């Protein structure tokens, strides 16, 4: 008997038992595993909420509120991964005064698992970024910046595998081309490598060699461009093995994730939550035995 059918039948049976007996027997959804991905991007040093008189985002944002929300969600589902897609730095005097120390300390307190590096994270130079790294208790994942000739060499990961409730989640990171965007005196000898090639490579390693159940790309490439410039949407279509692209850079406010089809004909989710910590993105993955899925296929609710 399939487990799902069994649960349906047992719930019918238990309906005859008093409510008291049920309190220790709360039903989970009919899936074996539940992984929650929470994400932010382009927070740009926005520590405090916008005031009531703000011309664009009155009463929105604020790290202390975000912390409450994250805590609530983590209490509901401890199998949660918290990620940031870059441009943590620059945008309020907190950065000008403290150089990013407070941003990293707060993200550490909120137990961020990983972040990728945005162009503005170089604003105090690559040395300025390195100087703040001791305040970050989370990992920096960057796959297409080659830092080997810089002070950042050895301080970032090409990818990282997180295991939550036995589910292996592989994360790799992509950064935007720095030339023309950041002065080279700031990023120094950082080499920008082709994001699509790197993504193909990293996602293959994560899916096939590291046997990851989920592959996430933390991207600071930007959601979409009118030009030929590589974007998250292009990346989604041109690759395989990626389940979710968490984007940034273009400050795109998506009300819900975009569903794209990859090279192998599989669905990829692309999400981005604007900027300044006004929203928290939440993606819930429900995993189940392969033979249970085959009947219904992958369900996407956005």
């Amino acid at each position, binding site marked *: 008997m399939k487990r799902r059918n069994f649960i349906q039948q047992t719930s019918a049976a238990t309906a005859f038992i008093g409510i008291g007996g049920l309190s220790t027997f709360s039903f989970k959804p009919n899936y074996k595993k539940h992984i929650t991905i929470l994400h932010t991007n382009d927070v740009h040093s926005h520590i405090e909420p916008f005031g009531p008189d*703000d011309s664009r985002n009155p009463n929105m944002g604020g790290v202390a509120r975000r912390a409450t929300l994250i805590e609530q969600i983590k209490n509901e589902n401890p199998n949660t991964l918290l990620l940031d897609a870059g441009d943590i730095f620059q945008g309020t005097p907190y950065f000008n005064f403290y150089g990013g120390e407070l941003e990293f300390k707060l993200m550490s307190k909120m137990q961020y698992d990983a972040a990728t590096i945005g162009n503005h994270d170089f604003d105090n130079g690559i040395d300025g970024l390195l100087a703040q790294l001791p305040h970050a208790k989370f990992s920096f994942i960057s796959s297409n910046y080659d830092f080997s000739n810089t002070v950042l060499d050895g301080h970032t990961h090409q990818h990282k595998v997180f295991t939550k409730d036995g589910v292996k989640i592989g994360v790799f990171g992509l950064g935007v081309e720095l030339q023309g965007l950041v002065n080279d005196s700031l990023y120094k000898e950082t080499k920008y490598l082709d994001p699509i090639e790197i993504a193909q490579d990293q996602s293959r390693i994560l899916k096939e060699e590291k046997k990851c159940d989920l592959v996430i790309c933390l991207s600071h490439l930007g959601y979409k461009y009118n030009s030929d410039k590589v974007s998250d949407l292009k990346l989604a279509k041109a690759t395989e093995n990626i389940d979710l692209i968490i984007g940034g850079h273009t400050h795109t406010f998506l009300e819900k994730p975009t569903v794209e089809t990859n090279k192998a004909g599989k669905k990829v989710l692309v999400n981005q939550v604007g900027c300044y910590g006004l929203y928290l*993105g939440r993606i819930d993955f429900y995993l189940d035995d392969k033979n249970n899925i085959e009947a219904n296929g992958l369900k996407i609710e956005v």
Partner: protein
Amino acid sequence: MKLFKLINCVFFALIILSCKDDSIETAKVKGQRIAIDNKIESNAEIKEFITPFKEHLNKTLDSTLAYNPRAMVKSDGDLNTAIGNLMADVVMEQAGPVFKSRTGNEIDMVLLNHGGIRAGLNKGKISTRSAYALMPFENEIVIAEISGAKIKEMLTYLERAKTAHPVSGIQIIMNKNYKVKSAEIKGKKIEKDKTYFVATSDYLQQGGDNMLFFKNPVGLTKINYKLRNAIIDYFKKVDTLKVTKDNRFIRQ
């Protein structure tokens, strides 16, 4: 209750059995965004942790410098905006005397980038904090001496950009299709062989936003004056901000 216990046992046994098969796959994905607004209570520990950082900042930032009679945002114009005009005029007014005293020359025009306007200015009190929001970056004002030919390249760049990049000292009139009909610096036609002193930010001069006409200038003067400090100094100097949209850079 016996029935319940029995079901319970069977249920857990089944879970254990099914765990043997470790080939799992995504069955369902749900995506949403959650607004972070004032309905969510602040985490007390985080708030407390921020407090000393905040107090130190506020002391410096919140004294009123000027008054803004109306809100300005960078999206309120086609090719020039009140806030962009304000920034470009501030550079002209604040950097001009410094440049003159150091070199004896005058700034002919200013070009900044629209992307560099990082916030609007709210109506009401203007403080150092407003200047930080408007210009959070540490960029400094530089004066590039470039040829009239390079100014033409600049105009071509602006034709392609179709964006309200802030200017001062130059008047540009484009047709509906963004082709330059006329351009004058300080009321005079641009001469190919003459050189012009163009104030901009070090970021743009070094090729930021692909403003390549600024690269390898005839001369470059660094005046060690941050764009933000120029804005703060200007706010201190004036009582009420008066800048509006005008005809400096238009289509007709």
